[in-house]
């Protein structure tokens, strides 16, 4: 049997390092010895039943279940007592509210899992409102927004490096689809989404993609990125103004966005000059060197 040189304790046979300080036991095998009767065997010989929740979480879960059950019973009794009262939304709201508290208790602390659950629960609640009261249009907007939120905020966090391209494509397409869906909800046609939203969307996507490609290729300063984004935004606004004018059947190129067009033009000129001057300077610098 060996001693730990750091702690001074004697180590039982078979221990190759001290459990108190992790100091490795150096010496011949006879010194370490063989473990005749281990403290506890290494292999599991029976099914292990470990509870998944600690005391506090279990308590909160039980309280939530208790109060949700009480609320549901109360709602059902009220529905029987008052025939005019439809408890559907109240029941769904109670269940969803309880689930909102329970999800972070029982789920692993993962942003994707918890966000996804919250999106699903909110969708269920809004869906119940939409079914119960179809004239509430805002419910449909909310449903579309929830799906868009999940695609833009949660999908990127999903694991899988090789699907980055697919994720980006889905994110880009989803924005366009969202615009189409909101148009459909509002007017039951694709009138302004094709005439106004689509050109802005296409313009923005193309030039932002170009910017992203340029940034991935070489050194682009933060100033240039910010100015480029402002320029793209300005021109997107101008295009939007022009398309809106055309959609409403009015005369003229643009109406209120003249100042934005001027700003956009100045920024574009500045960026072009900056880029050109840099290339000219580098050209002469290389020639001199």
């Amino acid at each position, binding site marked *: 049997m060996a001693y730990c040189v750091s*702690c001074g*304790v004697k180590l039982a046979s078979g221990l190759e390092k001290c459990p108190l300080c992790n100091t490795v036991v150096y010496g011949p095998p006879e010194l370490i010895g063989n473990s005749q*009767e*281990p*403290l*506890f*065997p290494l292999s*599991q010989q029976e099914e292990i*039943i470990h509870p998944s*929740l600690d005391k506090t979480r279990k308590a909160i879960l039980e309280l939530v279940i208790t109060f949700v059950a009480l609320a549901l019973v109360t709602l059902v009794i009220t529905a029987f007592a008052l025939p005019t009262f439809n408890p559907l939304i109240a029941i769904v709201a109670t269940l969803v509210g309880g689930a909102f508290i329970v999800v972070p208790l029982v789920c692993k602390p993962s942003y994707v899992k918890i966000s996804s659950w919250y999106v699903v629960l909110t969708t269920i609640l809004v869906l119940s409102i939409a079914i119960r009261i179809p004239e509430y249009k805002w419910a449909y907007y909310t449903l579309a927004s929830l799906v868009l939120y999940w695609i833009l905020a949660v999908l990127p966090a999903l694991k899988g490096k090789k699907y980055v391209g697919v994720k980006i494509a889905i994110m880009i397409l989803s924005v366009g689809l969202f615009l189409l869906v909101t148009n459909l909800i509002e007017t039951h046609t694709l009138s302004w989404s094709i005439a106004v939203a689509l050109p802005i969307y296409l313009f923005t996507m193309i030039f932002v993609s170009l910017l992203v490609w340029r940034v991935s290729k070489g050194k682009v300063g933060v100033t240039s990125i910010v100015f480029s984004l402002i320029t793209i935004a300005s021109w997107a606004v101008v295009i939007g103004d022009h398309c809106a004018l055309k959609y409403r059947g009015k005369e003229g190129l643009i109406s209120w966005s003249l100042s934005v067009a001027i700003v956009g033009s100045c920024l574009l000129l500045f960026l072009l000059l900056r880029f050109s001057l840099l290339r000219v300077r580098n050209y002469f610098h290389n020639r001199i060197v």
Partner: protein
Amino acid sequence: MAHNPLIPLDNSAIIYPPTAARYNSHTFRLSVELTIEVVAERLLTALEQTLELFPYFTVALHPGFFWYYFAPNTKEVNVYPEVAGPCRFFHPKKNANGYLFKVHYTKNRIALEVFHALSDGSGGLRFLQALVKEYLILSGVDLTRDATTGSITQEDAFEKFYTPLKSVFALDPPAFHMKRSPYSDEVQAISARIPISDIKKVASTYKVTITEYIVSELIYALQKIQERERSKRRYKPIKVSVPVNLRRLYPSDTLRNFTLFMVVGIDPRLGHYTMEEITTQVMHQLRSQLNQKYINRYIARNRSGRSHVLIRYAPNWIKKPLMKLFSDIYGDNLYSTTMSNLGQLELDEITSEYVQSADFYLSPSKTNKVSCAAVSVGEYMKLNFSSIYKEKVDLEREVLTSLVDKQIRVEISTNRR
């Protein structure tokens, strides 16, 4: 087997079923190492015959409308091969056919794990001693069986000795608890084998008993840990909970829970304590609390809580989560760790020839993380630490190296990998 009627849980036990959860298994483990081989079939026969003498153990836990209760369990009892860690969670239905104890075995070891709602360390020890004796008889050793009357050994002693008193529900400040670190679902054990003569010698230099000395070492170690982990203005009292066997103070022979937890310690906010100061504090606090009048107050406090109208008539499904949330206020929050010493295992001359050593483990909790338990056989004491920490061993290291510094020979083994 004799069938018991429905049995309400004793005053100490009612807290365990609702608060059992992950990292809070509320179990303890007693084991003996024999000089002869342990044969599973023979051990099972010995267990069945021991249960004839201890019918109180043949119960299962059921949740009633107001309180949990025990009901007779007629399912088959079994013995199980040893497992990778002590003090496992007891599922009321899935574990051990509903029984609240489990008997494990290895080549030479018989171990008993008990859910604390059923019995305490002394009760469990009596059962284990009877089981070992029965096993030795079946193995051909010349021993006489004890006759134990079931009814006497299952009284609720708290109910019997309860005196209505106007108790003061004073709330002590929360004690220091070690920092969080990754936890393990399997209890990590470090077992230290110490010659009694060595530790007795050191304890006598401080003029304290062995238990008082070990408690002092724990407090001293926790003081060092707190000084490392916290700034001075965030110091908290350091307390150790010491279960006291009330059978030594009251005339009761019950198998059920009959212990109270004495909380002793220091307040480092008043300054750094030396080992001598700590031992003096521990000795005076423990001895001053160990009298019937003082203990009657605590029995009255615990028992009167149960009689309160709101608590008595609240349904179990309300009581369960509230007990989980509020049990720590009067429980684990008030002390930093637990230290339980069962003392010298009393064995007759013939049995002691076949028993090499014994072990006692207490389950830790999520608040206190590490607990300490001790039992002695012959010339050696086993001081066992149970921890939920995956890797952190600060408390164990501080205590055991302190013992080594005082020329106490310490041999350790562990299930940590």
